[in-house]
């Protein structure tokens, strides 16, 4: 039973990592750079959720969903703005410059929010926006929050898969990812597609932020850093650029962290995630479900 309980905890944590990892993977797939600011979009999702949640009646389904959708909408917009202001002017610059810019954007958001006039560095409680029930079933305690996290993540991953593989804009995204120049030749507008990719990925991060804050019941400006890094590890683990890979990687990282957290090595759990990343990159740089992309000179 102990094991089943841990498995459930791992599944709900892994689902959140998977949501963030999807954003990393999509941006990497289309633009080939790591968007460091993604983890701060995640944090802003949680902040939006908590600000709205404080003005809604607690513990109702429609209130919770409103928080979730508002966070997703704000984050989608924010993702588009960040891309327009900071990344689009650098579309043809070396990838390293874009990486450095994204570190700059990330630090800017973090330290702006830590400023007392904006949000303040101290953690604030996250309101219990969803109904909170605890079921006991054969010695297993299941909270409604855990089920909400897993359910929402599942719905979003399926929706994303449908968008990418069943819609015109999804086809355009895959085309840009495969060959940006050829995609432009057949009439795909890269600006629209890239903006859409950022909107989609950031919306997922926003949803992840609300769900994470719901689980840990607190919000603070640096809350995105560690989950963001671990989600990145998850994206690399699953094979960056691959949607099922990100989902799988998220679940694996969530599982590893939960089980190590429950063992005697719990103080090392952050280090182990990174050690795992280094090992994967050494032995299977394309990840579990990734394809090898030949480098052209």
């Amino acid at each position: 039973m102990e094991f089943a309980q841990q498995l459930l905890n791992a599944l709900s944590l892994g689902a959140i990592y998977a949501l963030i990892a999807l954003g990393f993977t999509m941006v990497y797939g289309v633009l080939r750079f790591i968007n460091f600011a993604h983890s701060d979009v995640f944090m802003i999702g949680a902040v939006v959720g908590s600000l709205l949640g404080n003005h809604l009646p607690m513990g109702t389904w429609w209130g919770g969903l409103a928080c979730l959708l508002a966070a997703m909408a704000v984050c989608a917009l924010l993702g588009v703005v960040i891309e327009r202001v900071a990344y689009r002017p650098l579309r043809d610059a070396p990838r390293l410059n874009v990486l450095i810019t994204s570190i700059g954007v990330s630090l800017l958001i973090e330290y702006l929010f830590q400023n007392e006039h904006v949000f303040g560095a101290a953690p604030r409680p996250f309101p219990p926006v969803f109904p909170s029930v605890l079921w006991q079933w054969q010695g297993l305690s299941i909270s409604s929050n855990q089920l909400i996290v897993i359910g929402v993540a599942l719905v979003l991953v399926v929706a994303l898969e449908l968008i990418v593989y069943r819609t015109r804009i999804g086809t355009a995204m895959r085309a840009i990812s495969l060959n940006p120049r050829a995609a432009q030749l057949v009439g795909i507008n890269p600006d629209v597609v890239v903006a859409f990719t950022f909107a989609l990925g950031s919306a997922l991060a926003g949803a992840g932020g609300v769900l994470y804050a719901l689980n840990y019941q607190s919000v603070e400006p640096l809350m995105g850093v560690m989950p963001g890094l671990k989600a990145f590890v998850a994206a690399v683990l699953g094979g960056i650029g691959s949607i099922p890979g990100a989902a799988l990687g998220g679940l694996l990282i969530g599982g590893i962290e939960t089980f190590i957290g429950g063992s005697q090595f719990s103080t090392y759990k952050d280090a182990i995630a990174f050690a795992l990343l280094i090992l994967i990159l050494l032995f299977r740089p394309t990840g579990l479900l990734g394809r090898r992309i030949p480098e052209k000179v």
Partner: protein
Amino acid sequence: MTPRRFGPPWPHLLLGGALLAAFLLTRWVTDPYANDVLTTIGINVILAVSLNLVNGYTGQFSLGHAGFMSVGAYLSAAITLLLGPSILGEDGGTPWAQNALFFGGLLVGGLSAAAAGLLVGIPSLRLRGDYLAIVTLGFGEIIRVIFQNIEPLGGALGLNGIPNYTTVGWTFAIAALTVFVVGCLINSTYGRGFIATHDDEIAAEAMGLNTTRYKVVAFVVGAFFAGLAGGLYGHFKMSITAASFDFTRSIEIVVMVILGGMGNTLGVILAAILLTLLPEVLCPIAEFRMILYALLLIVLMLLRPQGLFNFRRSHR
């Protein structure tokens, strides 16, 4: 890249000048505040110039320089703090003995950091660009977590009561040595390999250069000097915690390198001095320092990616 002149022996002149300055500073700087600021400048110059060898000249973007610094800081402090009393004896030893111990500690710290650099350099055999950035970031975090868990080194509380051996003179002398070594390395025939690796790794490989070796050497040398800087820092602040060598510290050093212009030692030195003095001058807005750093990164990348102090023709 535009051809560089091998011309006048700038590294040698710089070394001589800086050593003279170091000697003079030790003699005539008695004001404690000036002493503190100058020491901080010296440490930052060592960090920025050593990171510039990796990030600027070799083009291997590293985000874990503070990790190497922490290795140097912890191990050198461990030597003077834990072994010091038994070596120096009851009376605390003569200044000569103290300095000898300090240098032993610095050397051990630097060499351990170099060993850590070798460890990071090995994965870089197969990685490039942003993947390498993430791996170095990860290494920095792993080192931090490990130090936080070693109880003999203070655990999360860190080491306290480290003897105050760092002087402005020693700091500047080591800064001069760093500039000299990096300068000589880059301006030698061997050092052209770093720049070739930076400019086009695949082409350099095709020309028969062992780019892997250049990358590893850059990491090891860069880490060695970061370790020395860490040792100086520990014996200057007299207390260290693992948390003071986190990602933010690494970013501060990266900003110095980018502001100065990657692969431009003089620019990087100027940037290190500027970014040390700026918070001192702008004391009232200290809380906005990191916001300013972040904006600097973004604006520089958008408007002047070659760095503020790089006046050579852009080679891209």
